[in-house]
C-alpha cells in the first residue's frame, strides 16, 4: 500500500488558499490570500515551491491560462485541488480537530 502523503503547515495553507479562491487560483492570488488571512508577508518563491511539491504528490493539478497584456503577454498557471487533495485536507482537519479537543490550555483565549 502506498504511503499516505502528508502536509506541512505551509502546504496546508496553500491548499486551503486554493480551495478558498476556487477557479483561477494562481501564484499571486494564493500569496495574497495567505497574506490577508495570516497577516504575514509571503514570498512567491515559497508558494511556487509548495505548489511544486503538492503537484508531485498529486494533491493539486495545474494548467496554463491565456496570456494577458498586463502580464507582459505571459500566461497564468492556474491551480486546482484534486479529489485526493481534498480528501487529505479533510482528513488533516479531522485529525487537528481531534487533537484540539479537550485541551484546557487552549480554552478561553488565554495563552
Amino acid at each position, binding site marked *: 500500500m502506498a504511503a499516505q502523503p502528508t502536509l506541512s503547515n505551509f502546504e496546508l495553507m496553500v491548499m486551503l488558499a486554493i480551495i478558498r479562491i476556487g477557479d483561477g487560483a*494562481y*501564484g*499571486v492570488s494564493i500569496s495574497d490570500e495567505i497574506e490577508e488571512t495570516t497577516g504575514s508577508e509571503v*514570498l*512567491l*518563491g*515559497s508558494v*511556487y*515551491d509548495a505548489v*511544486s511539491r503538492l503537484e508531485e504528490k498529486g494533491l493539486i493539478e*495545474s494548467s*496554463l491560462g491565456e*496570456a494577458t*497584456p*498586463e*502580464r*507582459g503577454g*505571459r*500566461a*497564468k*498557471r492556474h491551480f486546482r485541488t484534486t479529489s485526493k487533495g481534498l480528501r487529505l485536507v479533510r482528513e488533516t482537519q479531522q485529525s487537528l480537530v481531534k487533537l484540539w479537543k479537550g485541551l484546557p490550555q487552549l480554552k478561553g483565549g488565554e495563552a
Partner: protein
Amino acid sequence: MTLKPAPRAATWFLRQFDSTPENESVVGDLFEQYQRGRGSIWYWRQVLAIVIVSLFREIQGNKRKFLVGLVRTWCVWAVLTSLLSVVAMVQITRIEMSPELRQVFLPGMLLILSVLKLLAVGAYSGHSSNIYPRTTRLVFVTSYALVVIGSTAVKLLTIAQHQPTAVGIMAIRELVTLPLAAAILLIGGTGGLSLVPPPGKRKA
C-alpha cells in the same frame, strides 16, 4: 495602458536559474505585481528567494549530479592550480630581473594565473551546466561557486597561519578575482563559452 518595464537583469537571472516548471508564468506573476506598484527591491528580493528555494529543491532532487559536479569541478580546479603554479614558478625563476621589478611582476603573474584558472574552470562549469537541461543548471553553477569560494577560503586560512601580514593583500586580490569568477560563471553558464549540443543529444 502603459506598462513599466520590470528590472531586466533580475528577469534575466530568473529565466536562467529558476527551475520552476512553466518558468514564464512565474515571470508573469512578478511582472503583474510590479505593475501594481511594487518596487525594484521587492522584485529583486522575490527573484532571489525563488532562485534560492529552487536551488535547495534541485540539490535535494539531484544529489548525485550535485556531488559529481562538485568533484569534477574540484578536480579540474586542483589540476589547473598545480600545473599553472609549477609552470609559473619555473618561468619566474628563469627570468632575470631586479628585486624591485620582481616585487611587481610576481603579484601580476599570480593574478594572471588566477584569471586563467577561473576562465578555464568557468568555461568547464558553463559547459557542464549547459549540456543538462535548464532545471539542473543551478546545481552545476552552485558546485562551481562552492569550489571557488571554498578554495579561496582555504588559501586565505593557510596564508593567515604562515604569513599573517600577507593576508590583506591576498584578500584584496581575491576580491578582484571573485567578481570576475562570477561574471565568467554567468557567461559560461548561459552558453557564451559553451558548445551546446543539439537538444536531441542532451542528457536527461
